[in-house]
């Protein structure tokens, strides 16, 4: 009777938008310990505002607007002009932006933001890293060794109350792109200073655990870690208050439960359903699947530092054994396309490579050629063939890993599966770089540029390949990047970057498998979907269809 009394209350749009996700933000400071976690970024990007952003582009067939990566438009900066000679970007800030705390935007806020980034006082120096990637002057490695180098000089300075200049060290075409990313969003310096304390001058505690004060479309109304995040529209938002005044992001760990709740029409949006569940939603009326061929991909990484993967023949053999078709059919239910490149094919400058998969015969031949006929001899490397993947993604990656394992076993490769917690996976991939053999579907370069991607993953660590998880080192490639980095001519740069990619895939630095579609399942009434490279929904764009 009790249950009958208050079972499923009807969902009304009046209350706002209910979003189901597998994990609510663990921290909201982009220099904090958990900024790398995608769900944390969802919180950050909806609460904070960038200086500039990509201009909206076309709407794809499933109703999702894709940015036009060739054009930028103003956000907190309404205009900007770039003095190529001096490498100085002058930003004219808008006068009508007001933060959640009610403070108007000033140049001081921008200066504060960069100063904070350069202080590398946070758990993870994302801001510094992106500024560095964008070539901002004096944002270099010294900050870690030399405390003096952590204070902001004149590379970022206020000209007047609403004008700032950012100076580049050397030419670098990535400056505008990095300004769009979640790692350089602008803080409300007044509020931040108000929250500063003795041992926390940059207010990391407040930003990370309460809310990052900024000029974004939403403000934090309530946040219970690992349970829910409730956003309320920022009434002063300079683009006009958000159409949907309230966003409730609920944590529902099991994707099956998210699926069930959507089916029962008890929520508006569900993130990160398994491909199978998405496929099953397709034909439920009242619900719509929104998807985009964005920048998410699945690839197999084999660590050059771990024999036998130092042998290109072995790498090629393993790649050839990958059952890509089966993976697309049984793992992604068709919602993915084969991937041959090493950078998201949607990114400017992306090139397709020539790694062949789905060819067991060739794989066997290559193995034999490498001296392991029928896999004999490989049993000497049991640890090398422990196929790691993020345990939390078991629902999606489990089946894929299983069919890959089966395929390899058929070749005589002693593959075993090793799902490890994402935290640990992160440690080993990013820092220790000691994962020998892993399935990875988490890498989506946040700066929309094949070059940036190439640098991130394939340039040798010493030369700035911070996420070179396979310890791939190729002097030729490094040289190419050194040239491309400073190259300002679009065409020539693109040529260089495509060479980089060809090198990487020729060496099978990665064995790319598929690019899979990024999905949201939404109530049909929810309109205005848009995609960004960080794959976090922009709630400001959403509205309920009348």
């Amino acid at each position: 009777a009790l249950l009958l009394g208050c079972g499923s209350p009807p969902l009304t749009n009046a209350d706002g938008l209910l979003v189901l996700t597998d994990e609510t933000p663990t921290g909201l400071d982009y220099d904090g310990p958990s900024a790398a976690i995608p769900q944390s970024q969802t919180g950050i990007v909806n609460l904070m505002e960038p200086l500039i952003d990509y201009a909206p582009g076309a709407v794809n067939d499933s109703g999702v607007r894709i940015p036009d990566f060739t054009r930028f438009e103003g956000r907190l900066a309404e205009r900007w002009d770039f003095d190529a000679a001096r490498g100085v970007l002058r930003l004219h800030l808008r006068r009508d932006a007001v933060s959640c705390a009610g403070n108007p935007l000033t140049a001081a806020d921008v200066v504060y933001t960069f100063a904070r980034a350069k202080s590398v006082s946070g758990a993870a120096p994302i801001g510094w890293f992106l500024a560095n990637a964008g070539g901002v002057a004096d944002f270099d490695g010294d900050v870690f060794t030399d405390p003096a180098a952590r204070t902001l000089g004149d590379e970022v300075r206020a000209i007047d109350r609403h004008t700032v200049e950012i100076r580049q060290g050397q030419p670098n075409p990535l400056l505008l792109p990095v300004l769009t990313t979640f790692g350089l969003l602008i803080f409300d310096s007044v509020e931040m200073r108000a929250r500063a304390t003795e041992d926390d001058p940059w207010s990391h505690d407040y930003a990370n655990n309460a809310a990052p004060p900024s000029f974004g479309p939403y403000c934090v109304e309530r946040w219970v870690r690992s349970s829910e995040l409730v956003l309320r529209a920022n009434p002063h938002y300079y683009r006009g208050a958000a159409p949907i005044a309230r966003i409730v992001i609920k944590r529902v760990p099991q994707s099956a439960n998210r699926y069930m709740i959507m089916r029962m029409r008890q929520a508006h949006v569900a993130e990160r359903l398994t491909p199978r569940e998405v496929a099953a939603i397709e034909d439920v009326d009242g619900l719509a699947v929104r998807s985009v061929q964005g920048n998410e991909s699945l690839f197999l990484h084999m660590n050059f530092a771990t024999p036998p993967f130092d042998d290109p023949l072995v790498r090629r053999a393993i790649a050839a054994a990958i059952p890509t078709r089966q993976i697309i059919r049984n793992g992604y239910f068709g919602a993915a396309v084969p991937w041959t490149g090493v950078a998201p094919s949607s990114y400017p400058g992306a090139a397709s490579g020539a790694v062949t998969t789905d060819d067991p015969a060739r794989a066997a031949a290559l193995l034999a050629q490498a001296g392991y006929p029928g896999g004999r001899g490989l049993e000497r490397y049991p640890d090398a063939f422990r196929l790691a993947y993020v345990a939390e993604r078991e629902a999606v990656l489990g089946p894929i890993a299983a069919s890959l394992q089966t395929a390899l076993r058929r070749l005589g490769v002693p593959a075993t599966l090793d799902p490890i917690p994402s935290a640990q996976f992160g440690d080993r991939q990013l820092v220790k770089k000691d994962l020998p053999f892993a399935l990875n579907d988490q890498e989506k370069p946040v700066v929309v540029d094949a070059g940036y991607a190439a640098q991130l993953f394939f340039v040798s660590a010493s030369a700035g390949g911070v996420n070179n998880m396979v310890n791939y080192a190729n002097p030729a490639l490094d040289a190419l990047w050194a040239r491309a980095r400073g190259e300002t001519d679009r065409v020539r740069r693109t040529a260089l970057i495509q060479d980089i990619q060809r090198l990487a895939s020729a060496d099978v630095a990665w064995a790319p498998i598929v690019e899979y579609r990024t999905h949201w399942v939404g109530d049909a009434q929810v309109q205005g979907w848009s995609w960004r490279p960080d794959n976090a929904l922009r709630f400001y764009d959403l509205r309920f269809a009348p």
Partner: protein
Amino acid sequence: MIARLVLRRIAIGAMQMAALAALVFFVIRLMPADPAARFVGLGASPEAYAAARATLGLDKPLLAQFADFLGFGAARGLIDGDLGRSWVSGESVAREIAAALPITLELVACGVALAVLAAFPIALLSARRPGGGADRAVLIYGLFAGSQPEFVWALGLVFVFFAQLGLAPGPLGRLSPFAEPPEPVTGFMTIDTLLAGRFEAFSDAVAHLALPAATLAIVLSGPIIKMLRDSLGRALKSDHVLFARASGLSENRVSAIALKSALAPTLALIGILFGFMLGGAVLVESVFALGGLGQYAVRSVLAFDYPAIQGVVLTIAAVSLLVYLITDAAQALIDPRVAT
């Protein structure tokens, strides 16, 4: 004399906690984790790495770290009730636990309460005619109820009562998503809603608690019924119950006498189950997205969040010891022989 019992138990408990604290601290540090690595994350230069180790105090010798953890170091520590900061969220562990603990306590308390309420009539039924049909049925049920992982029940109940029948609210936590949670006073959703005088919210909270609590109740009722049945059977065979009959007391009175003497051992079991469920409810919590202590523990372990793990283990141990203390005291109240 109950006071003496309580004091003695508190003393012992304190010593156990001390031992636990040390054990937990050092065992955890054997974990193959590199927390500093996570802190520096992307773009880690060796220097950043070193810096992170320093922030985490990992550069100090282990014993120094232990001293800090206990609070004998510069910073506040265990003895000040400070459990340090989570390495995942950067939030104070004590605060995070304070938020999660009531959720689990509420769940487990309701689950145990339901189980006990169900167990008594059933056990009585079986004890009335030992060896009878009812008795056998109860025995079988008692053995069966505990024979599945609780998440099987949880998922089953959700599937039936939410997905199929639409009777129960979705597994969306403790309140309907848009309901305004009350000012946290006790942290118990049901109580807080009442304190706030919001009865619709109260019934909402109850409805959300119903399935998870039922899940625990089903699983726990097994052992409780079994224990109650056994000790009730023993009591009904005992001389003093026979003597009560012989002196012409009514059947109800006799049952009451028997029940009372069956209560003491059952109480002990309930205490143990309660303690076990504090950590064991995690399976149910995660199915119903309650975000309780168990889920917090799982998250912390998977992320090798040392301070959080220490905090959780110590908290749960402390609470269980407290619960044991309470049940023992209750036992002593019922049975004068225990107290002495």
